[in-house]
């Protein structure tokens, strides 16, 4: 049992041993933690220091306005794959009629591929 737990995961084309990696991770964590501990941990709480950097502009009273909304994330990626996303959006109409249409379509495809018609 003990041996089985320690065995390397062999995919036939590569190896993966989570335990060894995890152990190495722990050791390096210790080293880095000690190294980091030599740094200066202090800062001045509640001063101008801890305010958000906005190129000198004042911070909003309502902090929610500072939160970039989920729909604005990955703009560059969405922008350059617009054509795919717009096509897909058109596919998802949310109507049961269209769902059945896709189902019929897939049956037709299967029939073509398996040579029924």
């Amino acid at each position: 049992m003990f041996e089985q737990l320690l065995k390397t995961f062999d995919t036939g084309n590569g190896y993966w041993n989570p335990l060894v990696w995890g152990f190495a991770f722990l050791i390096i964590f210790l080293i880095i933690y000690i190294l980091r501990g030599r740094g200066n941990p202090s800062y001045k709480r509640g001063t101008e220091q801890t305010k958000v950097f906005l190129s000198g502009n004042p911070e909003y009273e309502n902090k929610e306005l500072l939160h970039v909304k989920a729909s604005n994330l990955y703009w560059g990626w969405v922008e350059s794959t617009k054509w795919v996303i717009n096509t897909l959006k058109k596919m998802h109409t949310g109507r049961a009629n269209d769902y059945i249409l896709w189902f019929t379509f897939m049956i037709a495809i299967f029939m073509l591929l398996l040579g029924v018609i």
Partner: protein
Amino acid sequence: MNILDILLQQSPALIVATPLLGAFLTPLIGKLGYNVRNIFIIIILAVTAFLVFLLASDVFSGNIHTYVFGGTTSTVLSNTVIRILFEVDGLSIFMAIITVILSLAAVIYSWAFMREETGQDKYYTLLLLMTTGMFGMVLTGDLFNFFVFLEITSIASCALIAFWTHKAKAVEAAFNYMVISTIGALFVLLSIAFLYGKYDALNIAKLASRITPVSFSFIDKLSLILLLAALTMKAGIAPMHMWLPDAYGRAPASISIILVGATQASLYGVFRICFTLYGNVIQIPEVSLGWIMVILGLITMLIGVFMAMIQIDFKKLIAYGALAELGYMFLGVGTGLTILSNPQLSLASNSFALQAMKGGIFHIINDALDVGLLFLVAGAVYYATKESSLNNLGGIARNMKYTTVFFLIGLLAVSGIPPMNGFASKLLIYESVYQLNPILAIIAILASIMLLAIMVKVFYSAFLGPKIDRFQDIREAPKSMLIAMGILASLIIFFGLFPDLIVNTLVEPAVKAITHPTSYILWLTGGV
């Protein structure tokens, strides 16, 4: 004969009967009070879990377990008598284990999650019925019986998706699901009728032994197509997936997690039909389903990640992520089927096919755990904030520390970052499917990175960010919800740290079941 042996012998029937009995007792027990009922339901599922693991220990030692209702195996053998038969092999029990883990987690979670709701007796009754249906689907050895359990699952889950009837979108999702699953199930019934008409049998093993290359004709092909189309639709494979994100997203979180299991039970149906029912004719060139499966898997993966990228509803986004995960299973198993169904290639000289199937099957359980955990987290966030749109959330990591950690675990697992369980199964898939065609592995890797980006987006917009006044006073999720999430999270980490153990004990028998359909088919003549 001690009690364990008797239990083991009766276990296939008991696994289905216990939750069914529980379902009908629930309204009665419900009269006794909130806690009594919930404890009763947890005990019912715990007993079922015990039976499942008892049966699993027997099946994993290499047996195929059968149970005939109202008769013996010889009754089934005779042509004139029809009996319901349960036949449990490695794949069935693998799916049953997933079902039991998911439903236990869902019930523990519901304790607090559903506390404020009305109509809880109905909720729990339907939940247990749904579990019954799923167990029946994966354990049965009879095609018509499979259809019956498919319907039980569909009806129960349809009602549960619409559980929040005051939300128009939930009702709409349930309606769409009902239309889809009824039509799908009717096609399943139709093709069962075709097969019954031609072969005079409903038993999967018996049917499979009669569908031979000699007898194979138009009717068989038609039934195969109808079964395949209906079940892939129920499993949510693109482009017939559109009902899935709505259904997952609008149901209560504790139901979404069981729905994951329900779609996987349909996936089991697809595998059972391709590998076992049509096991004898798998090498007929016209039935070259392998590549179809692979392509469908890729399409599902890509549509899943692209659509998830632009979602802003927490649970719908995870639902699209779950869709992408389904693609991996189809990719892995489809690769195996391509090699199996090619008469020129042998499985022995193409060991990658076996590895791909292992990866695909292993991914089923990983997906159930990962996506299940994420749904539970989404539910916990909804419970605390009453917000489901990511645009309105933010900064709740301050108030909900444990939930944040659980989400982080789910995030890493679902996007396959080492050392979580998702990495192990994806590694198996990547490092085997590339031998069929390098493009397959490339797209799979790409989809998994995009999945990471999607989940990081959720992590940021829901959990990180500045303090928001509205969420100043929200509290950590209640204990029962944390326990349910904790169970799934610890399983994820355990599976991640010991992938070799899991693959050898759980996955290997399931893969054996689908690569050696003859042992499933031949128990009739071989005897048990």
